[in-house]
């Protein structure tokens, strides 16, 4: 019996509509596969590039306790990248291929990591706001339609909540410290607030892929829905911390039972996405040299394994 493409597509769509997971050996539309590869790869790249802005403070963390927490956290990000690359590999690609696409600029990573981290308080702010925004994005992805991606996200979300809390706790501790430390926290929050809001992607009316991704069950909420949720979640946290969020339009709207807030600078967003952010070149250069400098090591291990196999 020959099964037609239409019948296969019907089967696939029924699986997704039932809320069942699609697994690697199932038939899937080529566009679904491509969308998943693009999204999971971008996510994996973000974890790996995201090691850098915070990782730069490991050597300077001001207490042994903070040094350990930060090193463990950045190490977790390497782990997250590894889980995600593995999920992506089930779609018929390889980590090497994905790495090459990252380095050649064919695949992107989250723009937030193209912002610099000039202050130690940024370690806390990244944990609180950036990881907080990531969690908002990622929790719905635990139910995403592609099985390996959802399972990777479950692992990752469990670890991310520790990341967010260590960041918030660092900021809380600094706020109980000296005036200078309190100023550092506020200055860092001022710099990261808008980029954190941009992490949810462009507004819904400028996000052409959202509709199809939602129909396929890859994405579960629109960008604007998630952005709103993040703002509503963060405002009371900021109040408890004693910092001001740098948005004069931010206020509670009792009619909507949600916060109104200002519009991020989307020109800046697109400029950073297109590679013109403050640290784009630096981040990719670091990743490229790690990859290239490590080639002889990877090759040596393969050669030794082959010698052992003979």
């Amino acid at each position: 019996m020959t099964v037609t493409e239409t019948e296969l597509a019907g089967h696939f769509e029924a699986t997704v509509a039932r809320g069942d997971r699609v697994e690697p050996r199932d038939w899937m539309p080529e566009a679904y596969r491509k969308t998943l590869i693009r999204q999971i790869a971008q996510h994996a790249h973000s974890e790996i590039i995201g090691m850098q802005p915070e990782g730069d403070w490991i050597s300077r963390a001001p207490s042994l306790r903070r040094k350990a927490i930060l090193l463990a956290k950045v190490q977790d990000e390497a782990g997250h990248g590894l889980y995600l690359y593995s999920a992506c590999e089930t779609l018929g690609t390889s980590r090497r291929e994905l790495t090459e696409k990252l380095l050649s600029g064919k695949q992107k990573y989250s723009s937030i990591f193209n912002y610099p981290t000039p202050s130690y308080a940024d370690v806390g702010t990244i944990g609180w706001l950036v990881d907080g925004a990531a969690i908002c994005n990622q929790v719905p992805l635990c139910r995403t339609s592609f099985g390996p991606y959802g399972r990777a996200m479950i692992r990752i979300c469990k670890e991310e909540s520790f990341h967010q809390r260590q960041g918030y706790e660092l900021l809380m501790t600094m706020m109980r410290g000296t005036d200078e430390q309190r100023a550092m926290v506020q200055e860092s929050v001022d710099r990261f607030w808008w980029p954190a809001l941009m992490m949810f992607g462009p507004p819904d009316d400028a996000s052409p892929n959202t509709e199809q991704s939602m129909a396929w069950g890859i994405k579960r909420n629109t960008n604007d829905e998630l952005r709103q949720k993040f703002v509503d979640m963060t405002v009371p946290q900021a109040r408890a911390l004693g910092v001001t969020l740098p948005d004069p339009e931010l206020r509670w709207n009792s009619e909507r039972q949600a916060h109104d807030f200002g519009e991020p600078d989307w020109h800046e967003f697109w400029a950073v996405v297109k590679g013109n952010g403050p640290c784009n070149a630096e981040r990719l250069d670091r990743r490229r040299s790690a990859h290239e400098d490590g080639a002889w090591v990877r090759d040596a291990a393969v050669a030794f394994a082959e010698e052992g196999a003979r």
Partner: protein
Amino acid sequence: MSEWPLYEVFLRSKRGLNHVHVGSLHAPDDRFALMHARDVYTRRNEGVSIWVVRACEITASSPDEKDPMFAPSGDKVYRHPTFYDIPEHVPHM
């Protein structure tokens, strides 16, 4: 430039339980795969037992095979035969 082969990792989190699939990694050989599995998936939790196996050596059936709608996807090169469900009781997931 060579890429290390893909391994699947299975953990026994404590005595009396089955080994359960927890994820994958790359390693040049079996010994390195075990070390990497310990570093990546147990973070040095003592007392666990780890299995590693090259992904390409797993023979798998496809759950959809009984379904008349199943179509062999032999034209696609998948590096993973399949992933496995992870029960709730496995720690450090």
